[in-house]
């Protein structure tokens, strides 16, 4: 187990990076706690795999340092760092049995046979592989093979961290769910530091204590699933987390409110105070569909809108409304009635966010 620190960490595949776009991973200083489950979430090419490979030691960063428990490991091999990693596609040793596959990392480290046997059986039990232990790994299904790959990561009890690089890509949806719960259980039981890379928000949010959202090489927010949902610090987080993502409208600033096409929308005080001193930049107003309120016009603070469509999702309804040229999504409960003619929306001040150049200012 280890606390992982990034000290001015950055990586570029260019030999002489000059502009920010040259970086696959932009400058980053952070500390990740021991024994927590982290997820690295972002679309393809956002730098999450680069960061993972830097943590595991498969890649040496071009700038900055990585520290495990305060010790500089930037140039250490994966073995020296004592980490385990599970890859996107199952990596198994074809000629070995499932048991030998699971025992391999331990035997390479000269762990006594009795301990090897105990650990292998424990991990096999946790991953439902006990019945297959004597079979040759090559004969199993892709699901089972990926379980073996995971098992080889989990079998070492003394690892600094276990890294998962989109490990459930090849698994069918049902098994995915079960395996993720299994990982979660294992994490809770052994309190291992786990780092899980994925582009699937459900996977990230259900697995991790803390989710790091990556976008164009930058880590735009690190927070609990709740923080990411309620307080997205970057418009990308608002857009990427949640389904559908946050509603965004370009706006200008009034004295104590935002102006969207001349319509005043109240802002929280903190937004006003932090926006006050700053001039210039592109301002955007954001609110999650879950927090917008649909009501009738005439009520206090209600802004008249036109309802252009309603999707019934079974457990909730999703209304599409037009406010001048802007299309907004509103999530409603199943029972709520949708006014046909005099519909209006209200922006609860607490959930209304102001962004300047994509970054949250209040």
């Amino acid at each position, binding site marked *: 187990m280890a606390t992982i620190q990034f000290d001015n960490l950055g990586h570029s595949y260019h030999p002489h990076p000059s502009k920010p776009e040259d970086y696959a991973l932009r400058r980053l200083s952070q500390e990740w706690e021991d024994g927590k489950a982290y997820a690295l979430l972002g679309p393809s090419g956002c730098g999450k795999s680069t960061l993972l490979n830097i943590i595991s030691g498969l890649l040496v960063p071009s700038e900055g340092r990585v520290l495990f428990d305060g010790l500089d490991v930037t140039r250490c*091999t994966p*073995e020296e760092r004592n980490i385990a990693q599970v*890859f996107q*596609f199952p*990596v198994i040793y074809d*000629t070995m049995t499932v048991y030998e596959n699971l025992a*391999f990392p331990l035997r390479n*480290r000269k762990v006594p046979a009795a301990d090897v046997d105990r650990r292998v059986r424990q991990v096999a039990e946790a991953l439902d592989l006990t019945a297959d232990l004597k079979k040759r790994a090559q004969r199993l299904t892709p699901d089972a093979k990926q379980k073996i*790959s995971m098992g*080889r990561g989990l079998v070492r009890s003394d690892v600094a961290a276990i890294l998962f690089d989109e490990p459930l890509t090849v698994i069918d949806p049902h098994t995915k769910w079960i395996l993720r719960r299994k990982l979660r259980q294992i994490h809770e039981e052994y309190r291992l530091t786990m780092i899980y890379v994925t582009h699937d928000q459900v996977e990230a949010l259900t697995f991790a204590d803390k989710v790091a959202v990556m976008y164009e090489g930058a880590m735009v927010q690190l927070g609990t699933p709740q923080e990411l949902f309620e307080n997205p610090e970057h418009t990308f987080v608002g857009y990427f987390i949640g389904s559908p993502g946050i509603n965004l409208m370009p706006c200008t600033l009034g004295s104590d409110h935002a102006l969207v096409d001349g319509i005043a929308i109240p802002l929280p005080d903190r937004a006003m105070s932090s926006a006050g001193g700053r001039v210039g930049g592109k301002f955007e107003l954001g609110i999650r569909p879950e927090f917008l309120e649909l009501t009738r016009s005439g009520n206090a603070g209600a802004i008249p809108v036109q309802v252009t469509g309603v999707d019934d999702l079974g457990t909730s309804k999703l209304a599409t409304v037009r406010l001048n040229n802007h299309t907004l999504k509103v999530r409603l409960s199943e029972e709520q009635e949708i006014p046909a003619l005099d519909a209006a929306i209200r922006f609860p001040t607490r959930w209304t966010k102001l962004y300047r150049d994509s970054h949250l200012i209040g």
Partner: protein
Amino acid sequence: MDKVQDNRAWFLIIPVFLIVAFSAVIPLMTVVNYSVQEIFGPGQTFFVGTEWFEAVLKDERLHDALVRQIIYSLAVLAIEIPLGILIALGMPGGRSAKTSLTLVLLALPLLIPFNVVGTIWQIFGRGDIGLLGATFRAIGIDYNYTNNSAHAWVTVLVMDVWHWTSLVALLCYAGLQSIPPAFYQAAKIDGASKWAVFRYIQLPKMRGVLIIAVLLRFMDSFMIYTEPFVLTGGGPGNSTTFLSQYLTQMAVGQFDIGKAAAFSIVYFLIVLLFSFIFYTIITRTGEGEKK
């Protein structure tokens, strides 16, 4: 769905039938026919049953040639397969000028016609004008492949290694290149030694190409003719006379067509048998335990 009955489909297969019959089936059957006849000349033949086969199986010279042949082929495999694997492991990967250069250099011996290879080595090994022969002579080794059977033997073997190890190396290289990088990364993380990486990742992944390499090298070396014929002519004595050369002497030299035909069939069956044995052994060892 209704099955379409259309006998015209047969017409499409006829050309293949004709070509295979003309090029393989009829010649093979002719050989079978010859093997049970005594032939004095065109039209002067009579049936002798299994007499030729009995004669072939008792032929002392043939026994010698067969033993020589088996030792030779096994030596070829024992040298070329491990050497080919070693070369493939040492080759640079990725798309670089170094890779292209290595590939071209390795492919060169494979592009040289067999009798040219024989001629190259014939000159190479000569004590008076050949680089190899002269070098040996200069450092005091009395190397002469024309009158020393051990020297002749080793020269033929080294020539084959020179000519064909590239094939094994290229096949293995192709096998190695198809291993995804994640396997090496996982092995690193699992703390595997270099030997373990070879034993548990590279070797199993090369199994498919190794089967092909072993079969090709076995069959080719078992049927070797041109290179030793050019280099030593089967000598000194009979020390480098392999099966195919003995067969040619019998069929063309002594015009012993019936016996040569019987020999051919036995020869063919031996190659088939050995190939089958190798194939079975290699596929079994890879599969491991039975269900």
